[in-house]
Structures are given as structure tokens and as C-alpha cells.
């Protein structure tokens, strides 16, 4: 234990000498959350909509108002000619067109199927997919309401109506989804990056020989290297969580103790990953490269931060199991958003612990081999 502390103290002195790095590690994460928390949003509101109403009936007006009242669409105006509509889209004045066929109301009354057309500017595929999801939902809801009134009026055929209720995030604010992701992302990068150069730097400068001669085993050396950075990353992670609660109304529905424990476990794993990289690489350049490639994009794309894991192909879903942020995100969202207890995510905590142990173990083994 004394040896671990000695290595830790030496590392701490080195960190304190480089003020820029220390300040970046401590405060930049919270600052970034501030910037990105405001900047990033999936909430697409007020999509500019043009309406081609060929029916001009009560039913068609109801459909249009259901679009406008949803808040997803903002009505730019009515337009009849196809050419004029196409021009509006080309010029970027509208991003969606709702085209209601003549005879909508009549067909509904006659119980004939009707098709309502929606045209969406697919310039940005992500936005277009979301907008088409909104449109589909609104039209399906409109259809269900129409069917209910008609059928009830007609007498006795059965109707099944879906009544949705949204849990945890009833206003469907994407910030509540993205902010925990950002917390995980920023902490992951900070933690991996902080330790990735720590061992290889000594190799490159030649001070490793001295450490090797000192009566310190690989395991205590590795642990000593992590401790100071763990303290820094932990402080900065807690700062981000607090900032998220103050600024973005991130709720806290679960236990603080569990939250802090999960953060700690996640950070140890992330730093172990950094250390492992540091023991594998021979130059800082390579360590830097591996650290970034293994943390920056995978944490963003494979963790469930932005893209839902259940929609990925099976092989890729299997690969996401080696991304620690995946487990942390489940735990984080379960604690803060759902107020779930440990039974909901204990497997994820176990996975994080396994990840940390394996990475630490591999790093020590690697070092032992090198020192032998």
C-alpha cells in the first residue's frame, strides 16, 4: 500500500507541474457539457409545412390542425399547384408537404380507404426519418379517431384504440436522453486520455529503467499511476453531473450512493483501458492514436448514446459488449431518469467491474513481462 501511495505521489507531482493539463482535466468537461448540452438536440420542432388541400372539408381541416397543433410542424401556407410546391421545397422554404386528396371526407364516410400523402425533403436523412415518424404517428392517430367516430355512429362493429402513455420523459425532451450520454462520453474520454500517456512517457524518456530498479511491483505501480487521475476524473465527473442537474433539469430519481459508485467503477475501467494502451505502446504517438481510436468514436456510436443498440445488426450488437460506456449508460439512465434500484442494472455494474479487472490485469501482466 505504501508503495502504491509513493507512486501516486510522484505522479501527482508530475500532474501539478503541468497546469494546462490539470485545468483541462478538471474543468473543461463541465464546460463542454454546458456547450453541447445546449447545442445538441434531436427535438425537431416547427418543421416548415406546406399544405395541398384538395378536399377543403371539415375532415381535411381537422387533419391539418392536428399537424399544426402537434408542435412538430409550422404551417407556412396552402398551395394548390404541384409546380409551386416543388419550387418551395427546392428553395428550402418548406421541408414537408401534406397533400390531402379530393374526396377525403366523402371516402371516409363511405368507408373507403384513403391515402394521405406526405412529401419530406430528404436532404438530411436523420431529420427526414424523424419527420416521417412524426407524420406517420399523426396520420395514424387521425385515422384512429375518424374510424372511432364513424364506427360508433354506424352501430356496433368493434374498435380497438391504442392509448399511449409515455414514462420517464413524458414531454419527450431529447435533452434528457442526450445529457446522460454526454456525461458518459466526456468522462470516458477524460479518463482514457489522462492515463494513456502516463506509462509510455516514462518509457520514452528513459525514466522507466529507474522505476524498474525501484522496489515497486507492476501491480502497485499500475495502481499508483491510476489513483491521482482517478481523483481528478472523479471530481470532474461529479462536476458534470451537478452541472447537468442545475442547467438541464436532469432529474435525480434514484440513489446518490449508487450513482457515485457506478461513476467510480466506470472511471476505473476507463483508466485501466488507458493504462493498458500505455503499456502496449512504445511511443506516445502510438498511445495517443490507439487511445483516441478506441475511445472517441466507439463511445459515441456503439454505446447507445446516440444510436439505439437494439436497431443494430446482431454482430455489431455483440461488439458493443466490449464498450464500457454501454453498461455505464444503462446504469446512469436507470438511476437518474427511472429511479430504478440496483436489481435493474446489477449485471451492468458486474460487467463494468469485469472490464476494469481484466484491463488492469492485462496492463500489469504486460508490464511484468517487460520488466522481467
Amino acid at each position, binding site marked *: 500500500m505504501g508503495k502504491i501511495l509513493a507512486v501516486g505521489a510522484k505522479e501527482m507531482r508530475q500532474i501539478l507541474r*503541468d497546469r494546462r493539463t490539470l485545468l483541462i482535466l478538471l474543468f473543461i468537461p463541465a464546460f*463542454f457539457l454546458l*456547450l453541447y448540452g445546449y*447545442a*445538441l*438536440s*434531436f*427535438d425537431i420542432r416547427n418543421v416548415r409545412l406546406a399544405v395541398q388541400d384538395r378536399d377543403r372539408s371539415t375532415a381535411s381541416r381537422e387533419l391539418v390542425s392536428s399537424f399544426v397543433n402537434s408542435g412538430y410542424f409550422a404551417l407556412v401556407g396552402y398551395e394548390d399547384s404541384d409546380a409551386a410546391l416543388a419550387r418551395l421545397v427546392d428553395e428550402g422554404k418548406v421541408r414537408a408537404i401534406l397533400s390531402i386528396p379530393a374526396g377525403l371526407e366523402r371516402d371516409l364516410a*363511405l368507408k373507403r380507404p384513403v*391515402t394521405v*400523402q406526405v*412529401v*419530406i425533403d430528404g*436532404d438530411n*436523412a*436523420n431529420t427526414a*426519418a424523424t419527420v*416521417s415518424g412524426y407524420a*406517420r*404517428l399523426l*396520420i*395514424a*392517430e*387521425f*385515422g384512429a379517431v375518424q*374510424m372511432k367516430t364513424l364506427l*360508433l355512429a354506424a352501430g*356496433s*362493429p*368493434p*374498435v*380497438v*384504440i*391504442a392509448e*399511449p*402513455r*409515455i*414514462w420517464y*420523459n*413524458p414531454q419527450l*425532451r*431529447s435533452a434528457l436522453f442526450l445529457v446522460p450520454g454526454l456525461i458518459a462520453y466526456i468522462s470516458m474520454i477524460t479518463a482514457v*486520455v489522462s492515463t494513456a*500517456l502516463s506509462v509510455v*512517457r516514462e518509457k520514452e524518456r528513459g525514466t522507466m529503467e529507474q522505476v524498474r530498479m525501484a522496489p515497486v511491483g507492476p501491480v502497485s505501480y499500475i495502481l499508483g499511476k491510476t489513483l491521482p487521475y482517478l481523483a481528478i476524473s472523479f471530481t470532474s465527473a461529479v462536476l458534470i453531473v451537478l452541472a447537468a442537474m442545475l442547467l438541464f433539469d436532469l432529474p435525480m430519481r434514484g440513489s446518490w450512493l449508487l450513482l457515485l459508485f457506478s461513476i467510480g467503477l466506470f472511471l476505473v475501467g476507463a483508466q485501466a483501458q488507458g493504462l493498458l494502451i500505455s503499456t502496449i*505502446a*512504445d*511511443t*506516445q*504517438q502510438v498511445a495517443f*492514436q*490507439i*487511445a*483516441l*481510436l478506441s475511445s472517441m468514436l466507439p463511445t459515441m*456510436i456503439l454505446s447507445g448514446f446516440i444510436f*439505439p443498440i*437494439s*436497431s443494430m445488426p446482431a454482430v455489431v450488437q455483440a461488439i458493443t459488449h466490449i464498450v464500457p460506456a454501454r453498461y455505464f449508460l444503462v446504469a446512469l439512465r436507470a438511476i437518474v431518469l427511472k429511479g430504478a434500484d440496483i436489481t*435493474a442494472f446489477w449485471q451492468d455494474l458486474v460487467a463494468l467491474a469485469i472490464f476494469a479487472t481484466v484491463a488492469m490485469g492485462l496492463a500489469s501482466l504486460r508490464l511484468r513481462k517487460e520488466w522481467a
Partner: protein
Amino acid sequence: MGVEPGATGFRAAVRRVLHLMRKEVLELKQDPRLFSVVIIAPIMQLTVLGYAATTDVKDVPIAIVDADRSTASRDLVQRFASSANFKIVGLPGSTSDIDRYLDHGEAWMAISIPAGFGQAVGNGRSVTLQIAADGTDSNSTTVAMGYAQSLVAGYSQDLAAAARPGQPPVALVTPEIRVWFNARLESRDFMIPGIVALLLLVVTTNLSAMAIVREKEVGTLEQLSVTPLARWELITGKMLPYAVIGIIDVVLVLVVAINWFEVPMRGSIPLLFGMCLIYLMSTLGLGLFVSTISRTQQQAMMTSIFFFLMPMIYLSGFVFPIENMPSWIQPLTYLIPLRYFLVIVRGIFLKGIGLEVLWPQAVALFAWGAVVLTLATLRSSKRLG
């Protein structure tokens, strides 16, 4: 070295640059892992990330509580089971078990079919199905709700038709959604050019970010400063070896994007390649600039990640549309070269447009690269002088 001290003239300069390049390549060879990392890793990443980065919502995990267990309710369950949009992960016995599925995140949606459902449907009474959805992932939930509403509406219609054979079918409003400019609406086609741009940024910026600061840390920059090497020669000689690696990466990732993922390539490949070169100039220049303003390699790494790479990734419009950002953040995005390059790659790939439309972005990208390289050159002089 065959160059006399202080020798002037273009040829002498070229020779000095070549010498520096040779030294740089020798240094890169010190750690042979570097090559495998910068060549193989981007391809592997593109292959995996290309599949993962999709905003399409499918296989929505759902739990269904069938409190009725009638033919009608089993029919409804069967419809969810056979739909490609849903995947049934559990059939809990009672409504109170729903909490567990949603809390644990095992299901995104839970549907409860009430007792007496089959009877009500048989007698022609209306029934309400409760659907509880996990709103955490607001976007995917909206899409999934649309799927569920459509499915239930279709079921409802079939029921009515079956109840009154011979009668006209019950009206059903179906949405027909057409997407212009990207008819396949494959979010993959949209994301992969973005991932290509990101990978190039991450790999090349990091390579060059260490280039000069390493010499500072080891102390050999002093030696370089007493050679007759001019500032621009130092920057050029440092940059070119990395540019070669960058070009290899460009070719490889483009081959994977076009041949493996079959992203439609509607525009000109030579134009795309040329634009990639301009982009490389700005990413490598950025790395060199970071290198000149840092004292240690660790500082260079922190500076490039936190002050350049992360803002670029998030504020470039890669995933999050710039139009959605608050108006005070939008002007910041003009400072980001990735923003311009994304418009260029997506435009060439998906729309097949050329320089006649993309020239403002191309000029902005080139200007960015020129400015950052000049800054790096000027900065390096202070340190050398």
C-alpha cells in the same frame, strides 16, 4: 548532409525538406505498431461503425401482457410478433410486471391487452389498449409509437371487416410518405460519408499533433534550430510523410464506403479525392498548429482532443443538425472545417453535385487549411528563434 550551411535556392530547400522527411520516416519506424494502427484501425472502425450508426428504428423490444388469452388477443400478439418493426422480449403475466421490463430497459414499450378483450371485440364493443412507452430515447419512441398506432389501426380495420362480411371495408387513413432527394432514406448512406470524414480527422490530426512537440520534449528541436532549415521547410518536411499516410487512409476508407457499404456514388470520384486532399491539408495543419503551441506531448493530446476534435465532432452537423442548434451557437459552426467537408462529401456522394454548387465550401475549407498552416509556420519560428 550534402547541403552547405545557409545554402539558398529552391533546389537546396527541396533537398533539406527531403532530408527532414527521411528523418521523420525513420522516426515513425521506431514503433512499427503505428502503421498498423493508422492503416488497419480506420478500416475496421468504418466497417463496424458504419453498421452501427443508423437512426432507423427497427426490432423495437416490446413486452405484451395478455390478460385475456383469447383467440382475438393471441391474434393481436401474433401481429406484433410477425412485424419486422417489433421484437417481443417477454410476455409477463400481469400488468404490474411491466414496471420491471421498462425499468430494466429490456423493453421500450409494454402493451396490455385487458381481460375480456376477446369478448368485447366479439360483441362489437370498443376496447382500449394501454401502451406504456419508455420516453427516455425520445426520438426512437416517437417513431415506435407510430408503428404501434398503425398496427393497431390495421388490426381494428380487419376486425370490423370480419364482423360484417360483405359490407364495404371500414375506412382507414394510410399515410404515404415520400422522401425527396434520398428516396431510399437509408440513414446509413448519410452517416457513412460522415464517418469517413471523422476518421480522417481523428487519425491525421493526431499524427501530426505529436510531430513537433516530440522534438521539444526530447530536446532535439534545439538541434534542428541550428540547421539551416527554414520554418516553412520544417513544416513541409514534417507534414509530407503524414500526408502520405493520410492519402492511403483516404483511398482505403473510400473503397470500403463505396464497395462494401455500397453508398451510392453519384458524383465525380476524382473531385471527391481532390477535396479529400484539401481536407487533409487542414487536418494535418491543425495537428501541426497544436504541436507548436504545446510543451509536452500530453498537452498536445489534451489540446487537440478537447479544444479541436470534440467541438468539431459535435458542432459540425455530423449527427446533430446545425439548424436545431440555438442561434448563438450556429455562428461558431462556421469555424469548423469539418462542417464544410461534410457538405462536400455528402453532396458529391448522395446528390452528385460538383464544384459549381460546392465552390463556397471548397474555398472555405482551403482557406481554413491555409490559415492554420501559416499559423503553425509562424508559431514554430518563435520556438526556433
